[in-house]
C-alpha cells in the first residue's frame, strides 16, 4: 500500500489540477455592480410583442420544512397563485409564466444546492425569489456573477449591499425599519410613552440569535439611534420557537431601565414576548415595536389572548387585507378565495408575494419593451427595476423605489394593533424612511 500511496496521491493531485483547468467555464467573479440608471430607452414598437408559445420561468426557494416554514408556505402559495392568474389572463405578452420551487429547510447549504440546481437547468434564470435573510446573504455574490435578479423577502442589509447588486427587497432592510420606528417614537414620545416612563427612550433589543433576528442591529442603525439620543440599554436573545421563554430577557430589559422593546422576528417570536409581558404584568411599562413580519394574522395564532397584541407597532411598506378600497388588495382577495386558501394563509406572505410577482411582471415587461424578448436577461430586468422606480406594484399594494442606489423600498406606513384580528391601524401614513445602507 505504502509503495503506491505517494504515486497515487501525486497522480490524483495532478489529475485534479489538469481537470480543474479544463473544467466547464464558470463566470469570473466580477466586482459588485453599482446600481446605475439604465441608459437604454424603450424602443417604440407598433404594439405589444406576441410571445405566444414562449415560457418564462420564475424560480423561488425557501424554508418549507425548517424553523421559518410557517411564513414561507403562504409566500409560496401567493407566488404560485399569482403566476397561475397571470397565465389565465394571457400571460406576459402571451408568454406562459412557469414557477419552480425548492425547499431549503432553512439551511444555507440547501439554498446553495437549490441555486445550483436551478442555474444548471438549461435555460439561464432571469428572476429568482428568495425568502430568508441567510440565503439572500449567501447567494448575493452568485446573483451578481450570474446576473440573476433576486427579489428577496429576507431583508438583511448585508444581502442587498455587501458584495451584492442584483438583490432587491420586497420590504425595507431591518436597519431602516428600526430607525424608522424609533424616529417616529422619538417625535411622538409624549403620545406613545408608557405611563411613568421618562423623557428619554431606552431601548431593549430582544430577538432571535439568528442573521434575521439580529438583522436590525447594524453599525449604521446603532449610530443613527445614538444620533436620535436613543440608548440601547439591553440586548437579549431567546430561542427561535413559538414556546420560547422570554421572561429573563424581559426582566433584564426592565432592570436596565428600558421602556421600548424592539424584536426582529416573525409573528410567533413577537407573540411570545407579548404573552410573557402580560404574564409578568409588565405590558404597560413598554412600547413594543417590531419588524414588518411580526404584525401579521399569525400573531393572533400565538397570542394567549388577542388583547395582548394591542399596542404593537410595526412598519408596513405594503397595504393590508383590510385596505379593500385598493384594487390590488381586491385582486389578491379574489385569488385567495378562488384558490380556496386556508384562513391561516390570509396573511402578509400571501399578499406580499402576489405584489412581488406583479413587480417582477412589470419589470420584465419594461425589459422586453426596452431590449426585446430575445435580449431578455437578468441584467435587463435589473435595469428595468431601477428604471421604473419609484413604482407602485399591484395598484399600490406594494411601494418600492430602487433608484439612487437603493435596493429596498424607501417609504412605508407605520401601523399599530388597536383591536382584534386585522385591526392594524395606520398611525403614520406613507413617509420616507431613513436610508441606513452599509457604508452609505
Amino acid at each position, binding site marked *: 500500500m505504502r509503495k503506491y500511496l505517494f504515486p497515487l496521491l501525486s497522480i490524483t493531485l495532478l489529475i485534479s489540477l489538469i481537470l480543474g483547468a479544463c473544467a466547464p467555464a464558470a463566470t469570473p467573479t466580477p466586482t459588485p455592480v453599482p446600481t446605475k440608471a439604465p441608459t437604454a430607452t424603450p424602443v417604440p414598437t407598433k404594439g405589444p410583442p406576441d410571445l405566444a408559445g414562449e415560457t418564462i420561468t420564475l424560480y423561488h426557494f425557501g424554508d418549507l420544512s425548517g424553523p421559518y416554514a410557517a411564513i414561507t408556505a403562504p409566500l409560496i402559495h401567493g407566488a404560485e397563485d399569482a403566476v397561475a392568474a397571470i397565465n389565465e389572463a394571457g400571460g406576459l405578452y402571451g408568454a406562459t409564466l412557469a414557477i419552480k420551487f425548492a425547499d431549503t429547510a432553512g439551511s444555507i447549504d440547501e439554498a446553495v444546492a437549490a441555486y*445550483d440546481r436551478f442555474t444548471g437547468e438549461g435555460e439561464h434564470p432571469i428572476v429568482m425569489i428568495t425568502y430568508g435573510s*441567510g440565503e439572500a446573504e449567501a447567494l448575493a455574490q452568485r446573483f451578481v456573477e450570474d446576473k440573476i435578479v433576486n427579489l428577496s423577502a429576507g431583508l438583511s442589509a448585508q444581502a442587498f449591499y455587501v458584495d451584492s447588486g442584483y438583490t432587491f427587497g420586497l420590504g425595507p432592510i431591518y436597519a431602516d425599519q428600526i430607525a424608522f420606528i424609533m424616529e417616529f417614537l422619538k417625535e411622538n414620545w409624549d403620545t406613545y410613552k408608557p405611563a411613568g416612563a421618562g423623557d428619554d427612550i431606552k431601548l431593549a433589543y430582544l430577538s432571535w440569535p439568528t442573521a434575521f433576528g439580529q438583522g436590525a442591529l447594524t453599525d449604521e442603525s446603532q449610530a443613527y439611534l445614538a444620533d436620535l439620543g436613543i440608548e440601547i440599554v439591553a440586548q437579549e436573545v431567546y430561542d427561535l420557537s413559538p414556546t420560547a421563554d422570554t421572561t429573563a430577557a424581559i426582566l433584564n430589559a426592565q432592570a436596565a431601565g428600558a421602556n421600548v422593546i424592539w424584536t426582529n422576528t416573525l409573528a410567533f417570536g413577537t407573540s411570545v414576548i407579548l404573552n410573557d409581558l402580560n404574564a409578568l404584568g409588565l405590558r404597560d411599562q413598554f412600547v413594543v415595536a417590531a419588524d414588518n413580519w411580526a404584525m401579521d394574522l399569525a400573531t393572533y395564532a400565538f397570542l394567549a389572548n388577542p388583547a395582548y397584541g394591542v399596542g404593537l407597532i410595526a412598519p408596513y411598506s405594503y397595504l393590508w387585507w383590510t385596505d379593500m378600497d385598493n384594487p390590488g388588495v381586491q385582486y389578491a382577495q379574489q385569488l385567495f378565495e378562488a384558490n380556496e386558501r386556508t384562513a391561516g394563509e390570509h396573511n402578509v406572505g400571501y399578499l406580499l408575494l402576489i405584489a412581488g410577482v406583479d413587480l417582477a411582471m412589470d419589470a420584465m415587461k419594461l425589459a422586453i419593451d426596452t431590449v426585446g424578448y430575445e435580449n431578455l436577461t437578468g441584467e435587463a430586468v435589473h435595469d428595468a427595476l431601477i428604471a421604473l422606480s419609484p413604482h407602485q406594484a399591484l395598484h399600490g399594494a406594494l411601494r418600492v423605489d430602487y433608484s439612487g442606489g437603493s435596493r429596498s423600498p424607501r417609504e412605508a406606513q407605520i401601523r399599530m394593533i388597536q383591536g382584534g384580528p386585522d385591526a392594524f391601524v395606520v398611525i403614520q401614513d406613507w413617509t420616507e424612511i431613513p436610508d441606513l445602507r452599509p457604508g452609505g
Partner: protein
Amino acid sequence: MAILRPAGEFDTHYARDMATIRRPWQWWLLFAFILALYTLPFYGSQSLVSLVNRIGITIIAVQGLNLLTGYTGQISLGQAAFMTTGGYISALLVNNLGWSFFAALPVAALGAGIVGLIFGLPSLRVKGFYLVMATLAAQFIIPWFTRNAFPDVLNRAQGLNVQVPVLFGFEFNSPQRYIYLTLTVLIFSTIAAHNVSRSRLGRAFVAIRDNDLAAEVLGVNLFKHKLQAFFLAAVYAGAAGALAAHNIRHLNSETFNLTDSVFYMGMLVVGGLGLDLGPIFGAIIVELLIEGATLFGPFFISLFPSTAAGAVQALRPLFFGITLMLFLIFEPRGLAHRWYLVKAAWRLRPFSH
C-alpha cells in the same frame, strides 16, 4: 470482521499482508471510479455535481465523527460546531490576512482540532449520555462566540462573506470546479482515516470503545487517546467546515447547526459505526434521502395543492427518522456491515453457510 480470503491465496511478505487493495483489477476499478468522479463535471448536470460536492464534504465530517464515536466510542454532538470553527478560521485567514485557501485549509483543520481538544477534556471523567451533554456544549458555546465576540472581525450574527479559493489565478467558483478540491481532500481524508483505524492508535481507540477499564489495565493511556480521538475528529470537521464555507461563500453561526450534528450521527448509524465505509455509505444514503425529500415536496404539493403543504414540512425529518429507525431495528451495524457480509458470502460461495 475477520478478513476472508480465497483458498490458496497466501501472503509472502508483510507489505502484502497489510495491503488494502490486493489485486490489479481492484486497482483498475478504483482508478476508474476515481476517474469517473473527477470527470463528472463533463457529463453530469450541475445539480448532480453540486450534490456530489455536498456529499463529499459531508463524508469528511462524518469520517471524523467515525474515528471518535465509531472507533473510540465517545459520542459527540459537537461535530457541526467544529465545522463552524474550521470555517471561520479559514475565512478569516483568506479574507483578512490574504492567505491562500490551500494554506488556510490545514491551519483551519488544526485550529478546529485544538478547539476539539478543549471540548474533549471532560471525556476522561464522564461517559455516555453525560459526554453527549458535554459535547453539546460546543454546539452552543461556539455559535455564541461567533455572534458576540470580536464583532468587528466576525460581523456578529450576519457572519462573513467568504472568498472562493484561487490557485494560480484559477477560481474554484462553480460546483464543476469546486468538486476537484472536495474530491482531493476526500481522498486524503479517506486514506488517513483508513490508516488510523488499523494503526496502533486505531487499535487503542477500539480497545477503549470495547472496554476502557480493560484497555487501561493493558497499558492504554485513556486520557491521551481519548483526546487524540477528539482532536482527529475536530481536525476532520475543521477541514470539512473550511471546504463548505468556501463552497457556500458565506458563513454565520447558523450555517452548521445542531441539526447537522444530529444528522451526522444518524449518517454514521445508517452507514456503520466503526467501519471505514460507514461514513461513505451513511452520508450518501442520507444526503440522497434529503435530496429526494426536496425534489418530492413540490411534486407532492402539485398533486394535492390544498393539503400537502403541511405534509411536505414533515417529509425531510420523516424520511430521516424512518430510515434511522429501520436501520436501528433491522441492521444496527449499518450498511457497511451488510456490504462486508455480502462480500464474505461471495468469497465463500458455494459454501456461504
